[in-house]
């Protein structure tokens, strides 16, 4: 007896990994994601201090610069708005295990489609906003959906890898918009279009400052409402509709979906179009709510990539995406003034890698035990 215990004491601890047989408790994924972000922030902090910065000051600065007062909270929400729509776009494609890396390009094409209504011009500048805005929304969604249709169709018909095709289309989208704003729609030779007429701008809180003085200077715009409504609709589609059931089944078990008679080819195309349309709506919201003219730099700012992170963080749940987008909106907003620049992108990268790595804990159990020889 005494001997066996001493053997046990001498044998080292062994770490074993085994697949989870049952679902972990409901709180577990949230704790894992939260810990992953914490680890990411610590890792980021270590890198910042290696580079000669002060991580604590940087983080406090990020918090202050994005949640310090009502004005910056409003700015944070403005930054979160395009992320919501881009993340919704990614989430619906990822749900079907379609790796749409092209929300960035679909976003830009959406902005282009919406801008074309003003710049072509499809509608004259005197058009009232209640016609302008819905038409621009439709145009943005259509252009984004087209940009999602191409990789969707190629995937469904020719089995072309969607990661590569969507990535390539990101660059085509930027070049396409550049072609128009450098030449056809240029504002006096600058690389941007003329400003949109006021009727084609999404209303902002500050526009109502006459009635509610508290709104003065707040730039939060109608795009937020568009994003939230889109999230709610998408939640219903995914979790409460027959189509959503098909999407989830194809994602979880394509074999079973095929046996159930679900048309996967058709769904690949439709889901990519829906994904593109959502990203396109994001581009429309950004160009009409913030930029107010067609210009590549502020539109191709990486919202599509941030959308990937947010979708993953929210575990593809449309409603959680709204909350997660605000956090990343804060990071991007604060990043504009934080020195040295580059910190927000780096932190985003670390967060994404940590999040994906932490998924391991959801699928596997780590067992620590005394080795038995």
């Amino acid at each position: 007896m005494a001997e066996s215990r001493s053997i046990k004491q001498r044998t080292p601890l062994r770490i074993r990994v085994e697949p989870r047989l049952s679902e972990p408790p409901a709180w577990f994924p949230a704790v894992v994601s939260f810990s992953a972000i914490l680890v990411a922030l610590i890792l980021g902090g270590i890198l910042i201090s290696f580079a000669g910065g002060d991580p604590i000051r940087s983080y406090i600065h990020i918090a202050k610069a994005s949640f310090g007062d009502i004005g910056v909270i409003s700015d944070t929400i403005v930054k979160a708005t395009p992320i919501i729509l881009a993340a919704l776009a990614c989430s619906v494609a990822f749900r079907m295990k379609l790796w749409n890396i092209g929300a960035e390009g679909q976003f830009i094409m959406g902005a282009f489609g919406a801008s074309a209504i003003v710049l072509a011009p499809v509608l004259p500048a005197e058009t009232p906003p209640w016609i302008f805005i819905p038409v621009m929304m439709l145009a943005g969604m259509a252009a984004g959906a087209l940009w999602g249709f191409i990789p969707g169709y190629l995937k469904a018909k020719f089995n072309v890898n969607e990661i590569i095709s969507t990535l390539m289309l990101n660059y085509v989208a930027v070049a396409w918009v550049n072609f128009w704003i450098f030449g056809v729609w240029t504002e006096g030779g600058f690389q941007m279009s003329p400003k949109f007429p006021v009727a084609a701008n999404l209303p902002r809180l500050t526009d109502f400052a006459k009635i509610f003085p508290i709104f003065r200077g707040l730039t939060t715009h109608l795009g937020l409402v568009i994003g939230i409504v889109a999230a709610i609709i998408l939640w219903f589609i995914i979790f409460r509709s027959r189509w959503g059931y098909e999407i989830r089944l194809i994602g979880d078990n394509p074999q079973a979906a095929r046996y159930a008679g679900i048309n996967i080819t058709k769904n690949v195309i439709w889901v990519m179009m829906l994904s593109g349309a959502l990203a396109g709506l994001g581009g429309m919201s950004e160009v009409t709510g913030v930029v107010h003219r067609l210009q590549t730099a502020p539109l191709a700012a990486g919202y599509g990539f941030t959308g990937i992170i947010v979708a993953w963080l929210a575990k593809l749940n449309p409603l959680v995406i709204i909350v997660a987008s605000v956090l990343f909106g804060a990071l991007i907003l604060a990043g504009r003034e934080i020195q040295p620049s580059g910190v927000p992108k780096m932190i985003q990268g670390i967060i994404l890698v940590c999040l994906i790595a932490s998924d391991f804990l959801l699928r596997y159990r780590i067992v620590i035990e005394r080795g038995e020889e």
Partner: protein
Amino acid sequence: MISELFTVTVLIGILASGIRLATPYLYASIGETFGQRSGVLNLGVEGQMLLGAFAAFYVALTTGSLWLGILAAMIVGALMGLIMAFVTVNLHAQQGISGIGFYLFGLGLSDLLFQKLMGTVETVKGFPPIKIPWFSSIPGVGEIFFSQNILVYGAYLLVPLAWFVLNKTTLGLKIRSVGENPDAADSLGVSVARIRYFTIILGGTLSGIAGASLSIALLNVFQQNMTSGLGFIAVALVYFGAWRPWGVLGGALLFSMVNSLQLWIQVLGIPIPSEIAVMMPYVLTILVLVITVSRVRAPSALTKPFERED
């Protein structure tokens, strides 16, 4: 105006810079080929290249040694590869998405280090062209092929070397078997994890050199996001080249020749919208994928994590 393109001097110029501009693609894509043949999609090449470009430039600037710069780029790339290998091999991460994380990480960190350590754009004297005796004096051909710098020659030597390793050595056989049928490879005693660690770290090292070739051999500056998508194209080139080093070479040359043509069109002020030329390689990649996808097959285990069944 168009006729200006077809003078001998300009044609030689286009071809010579096309050959030169293929260099970063070749290093990165050959590295990526090894990874993908073993079943791992590394979408973080862009980030590895940016960090490699910065490391090489900064070390070359401060020590004055270009070769130490290359070494630094290789170390940084290998480190990125090591982390990526851990995340993909041990933690079974979804490769398409985690790669975007590595891209953003490299993009942000290289920018952060640039701001902190340098602050302003500086230049270094990069690798000088080496004229190969006799060959370089052949009219035209000499200027195009035999008056390049050492990293350019290295990139082209890498292609037959990679072909040889992949197809004619035991290591290559192991890499391919791990990418096609990891279960079978495992049952024959090949360590899937070890092979994948090897290919991912090799890929990272080569991506590091690819970045260095930009910052201390071709452009001789470092700027934020200076790769601007080169690394992503390098990944696409592996598909383009059907996972074969020679195919990758063809794709790299096509891309670099189009880039070079577009640069010359701008230099000569020919009124063709350059955005159309910019678009071409990307559109072409997609078209080539459509045409080839029915005839060539990706490695069966590509992007699938390996799990040993007990």
